[in-house]
């Protein structure tokens, strides 16, 4: 090139100024090219595009008109949603949802006692956010809160009555005793020396008294705070017993889902460890349980819990009607959780086990400190996926007669107060939105976690 320019210098045309940048030709960039490339690249694609466009144009405007434009938003009875009474075409009857909203949330839970459910909801939301929000402080406290304190408080608050209050009193006594023990230990220097060893005593004694009360003790303190709060509630407004037959709606759906996750995760971990154990009988029993439960439909497990559980225990301890499916769901979820956790355990390199052993750790310390934290972190997406499945499966308790969210909707559909041609479509749409938001939110969360965990692998 340089040769050419020097040789033919007198004749060469050299542009002195820079040209304005030109837009890319229409055929490779811009909306037109995008349409050509993504919608009309071949005869087959053109046909597919036309079919899909027809589908969209055929369905979407109708749906929008039905659910939003023609919908009825206010009203007190079916008359508001009948086309001949209103005098215009009527779409979805959202007035019915608004009217029955309380029922969908609480079921038949007594109206004067619904504040108790609300407190549990708030605690549940707090626990979920605490655990799922990655940069939330004091994760250990959060785990303790979600897996120990929340179930106890939910039991006491939702059920109430003398039995629950006795249980609360027992928990309060235990935590008070523990707290007292810790207080004594942190105030008596000699005992401290005995308790944490010679070397740390100087450090501890330097600390102010209120800071010595720290470490695992904050769990006790936190538990104490919660239990005192509950006892105050139990004493001033009172917690009369609300039978489980009155519970219903989203409360029950969330309850079953929460019980499922709270019990299935630890049980699943134990089962997964059992399945990978080198002790043949423990391994065999774990395999039998996991494969047996995974091989049958949840419905049969629920039927078993519903009809056989009362047979298996003495008549006087016959389990509550709501408790039976809870047991079934928890056992069912545990088997699935065990397989997820097993995947995580198998993904651990052998070096991690060997490293732990070379430090002289025993089996349980090795699992608790080295293996499980890593294995569980790998399978968080799997755990969330199992949980999504569990959440969808909670609807099956409908079949054994529990008033979960879907059942409350079904129940209102046969109620003549709101019997209109569009009630059913509205009710199902509402249920669909509820379940979709919950499951979709969880799946987005699991994808985000997966991306964050994979960040270390990306180069």
């Amino acid at each position, binding site marked *: 090139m340089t040769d050419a320019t020097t040789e033919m210098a007198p004749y060469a045309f050299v542009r002195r100024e820079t040209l304005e940048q030109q837009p890319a030709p229409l055929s490779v960039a811009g909306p037109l090219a995008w349409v050509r490339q*993504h919608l009309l690249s071949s005869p087959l694609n053109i046909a597919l595009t036309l079919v899909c466009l027809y589908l969209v144009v055929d369905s979407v405007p109708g749906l929008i008109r039905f659910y939003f434009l023609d919908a009825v938003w206010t009203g007190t009875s079916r008359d508001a949603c009948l086309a001949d009474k209103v005098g215009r075409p009527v779409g979805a009857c959202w007035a019915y949802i608004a009217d029955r909203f309380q029922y969908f949330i609480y079921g038949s839970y007594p109206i004067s006692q619904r504040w108790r459910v609300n407190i549990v909801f708030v605690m549940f939301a707090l626990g979920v956010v605490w655990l799922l929000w990655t940069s939330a402080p004091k994760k250990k406290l959060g785990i303790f809160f979600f897996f120990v304190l929340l179930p106890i408080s939910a039991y006491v608050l939702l059920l109430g009555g003398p039995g629950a209050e006795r249980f609360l009193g027992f928990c309060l006594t235990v935590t008070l005793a523990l707290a007292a023990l810790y207080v004594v230990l942190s105030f008596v220097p000699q005992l401290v020396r005995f308790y944490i060893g010679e070397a740390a005593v100087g450090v501890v004694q330097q600390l102010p008294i209120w800071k010595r009360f720290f470490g695992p003790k904050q769990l006790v303190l936190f538990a104490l705070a919660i239990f005192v709060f509950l006892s105050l509630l139990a004493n001033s407004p009172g917690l009369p017993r609300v039978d489980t037959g009155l519970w219903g709606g989203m409360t029950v759906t969330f309850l079953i889902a929460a019980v499922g996750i709270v019990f299935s995760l630890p049980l699943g971990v134990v089962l997964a460890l059992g399945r990978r154990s080198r002790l043949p009988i423990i391994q065999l029993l774990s395999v039998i349980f996991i494969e047996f439960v995974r*091989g049958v439909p949840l419905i*049969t497990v629920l*039927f078993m819990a519903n009809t056989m559980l009362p047979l298996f225990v003495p008549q006087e301890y016959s389990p509550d009607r709501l408790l039976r499916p809870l047991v079934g769901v928890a056992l069912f979820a545990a088997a699935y959780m065990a397989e997820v956790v097993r995947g995580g355990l198998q993904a651990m390199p052998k070096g991690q086990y060997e490293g732990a052993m070379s430090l002289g750790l025993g089996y349980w310390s090795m699992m608790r400190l080295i293996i499980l934290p890593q294995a569980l972190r790998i399978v968080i997406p799997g755990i969330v996926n199992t949980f999504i499945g569990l959440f969808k499966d909670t609807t099956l308790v409908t079949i054994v007669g529990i008033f979960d969210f879907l059942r409350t909707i079904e129940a209102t559909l046969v109620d003549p107060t709101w019997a209109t041609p569009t009630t*059913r479509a509205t009710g199902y749409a509402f249920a669909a939105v509820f379940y979709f938001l919950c499951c979709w939110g969880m799946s987005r969360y699991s994808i985000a976690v997966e991306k964050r965990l994979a960040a270390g692998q990306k180069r």
Partner: protein
Amino acid sequence: MSTTSAEIKPGKASLLYDPKIRGYVYQFALLAVVGFLIWSAASNAIENLRAQKIASGFGFWHNAAGFDVNQKLIPFSASGSTYGQAFWVGLLNTLLVASIGIVLSTFLGFFVGVARLSSNWIVSKLAMIYVEVIRNLPLLLQLFFWYNAVLKPLPNPRQSIELPAGFLLNNRGLYVPDPQFGPGGNLIIWALLIGLVATFVFRFWARKQQAATGKQYPIGLVAFGLIIVLPLLVYFATGRPITFVYPELAGFNLRGGIQIFPEFVALLVGLTTYTAGFIAEVVRAGILAVSKGQTEAANALGLRAGPTLKLVVIPQAMRVIIPPLTSNYLNLTKNSSLAVAIGYPDLVQVFTGTVLNQTGQAVEVVAITMAVYLTISLVTSFFMNIYNKRMALVER
């Protein structure tokens, strides 16, 4: 050797810290706990059953059932049929809906999965919306939707919706023309069977020939000829012996044709669309798992798009697809038990529902139901594992 090991051998640890002894103790303790649980459950059950005056054992199997089932593949009637026959009716109905559902959901799932990877923007977005919506809604809600919101509000038989080819749709189900075989009609069935067998034999032979000589034979064309053209030829040769009885209105109901009950249609549609959403994701993941280099290598060898897909991408994708596909088939079979919610007479509805209610023999009935599903699961995964082993990558 023995002397050195004897020298290094450490001093014997206390029995308390011997891992072997500890293992035995743990296992024994677990066995004792499990044994005690089973024993106490059994003795409680015997006690409770005696208190409720419920007989135990399988004597109820031969008792008269006294209820009727609308859809049955074997003869069954309220008078004269036993609980044992009710079990078979339910089991066959479960297998029927599961097998048809598996076939249909495989086709739909592969279609949607491929559509999600389409370069056509609107096709892939629609497939994505389908997958997201279907997978994030409970199956039970979808079944209620299909049964209560779509099939129930259909017009009554007098105002049936007429579909092409003489199909009628109304709130009592789907009515299909009933084929009647005249003289010689059996020959067509035989021709079809012979065609199928011959196709398999030819395919086997052609594969062997290709492995030995490298020569390819037109398997697809021969299969078309044997399976479709041959029965058609026989059909015309024997003088068109198949006639159809079309459903027609008689009084307030339809007469003639085969009635497919709305419960069956709802369950089949629900199971198929639901499982297809999951299969679509399995297929997409499988195809994405084949590295792009494989396609590029095939192109570099001069293969065109069709053979590349058929010979290079799909065989490798199948390795990734088959194991999760199997579990989706099993899930579909297990999910068919939701039939109980909309009243399709499957195993759970007939046996665990009606028979359990009538006899009260919860232990036996639930145990049999679970054993059936367990057997189906184990048998399916056994065969799929054999297939999987044949397809799996053999590393050298």
